[in-house]
């Protein structure tokens, strides 16, 4: 298994959290379009 840095490990967790938030918001109808 490749050893990853502490920062990469943190990013992996943060990306997983972003994905979970995305799916949960989608299910609950809380994913809203915004102007940017």
């Amino acid at each position, binding site marked *: 298994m490749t050893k990853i*840095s502490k920062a990469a490990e943190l990013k992996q967790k943060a990306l997983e959290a972003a*994905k979970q938030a995305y799916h949960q918001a989608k299910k*609950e109808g809380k*994913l*809203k379009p*915004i*102007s*940017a």
Partner: protein
Amino acid sequence: MSQFFESNLNGIRHHYVKFSVSHINYVMDFTNDPDVIVSLMELGDDIASLLKQRKVYTVKFAVEEYFEQENYGGDLYAPPKDHQFGKKEINELKNQLETLLLRHYKVFHPECYFFIAERASLRRMYTKMCHNRNIELRDFIPLTGLGADGDCFILQTPHFRENV
């Protein structure tokens, strides 16, 4: 033009936007989740001193195919399958990331954007993005090679200096 979406669950906001490079679809995520920001500060004193009491967003992106599968068990930030990016595609990816970051900045005005490069190829691209920036990012200050492993990057926005 790609549409941005926002999720707000228990006050934790994420901004998502989809984009494509060479037929590969990606999802980009911006968040200022306080728990994430606090954990970033634990990556090094250099990082902590730059982020402390600042309005910070972390920036990440992943292949849409992996991101959209709720039960995907693989490596979320793996590169696209069976696809080798050349110089042209890397430049296109850089341009897309810069354009979307600028669009985000113009609305949310953070003081810093934070990136982590988990792969050597990404580290090269972020370094390029920092040192060879889009003309519209000329007033942004890049800080590269941060953290114990030198794989963290901060882009200070013009708002950083306004609030010194």
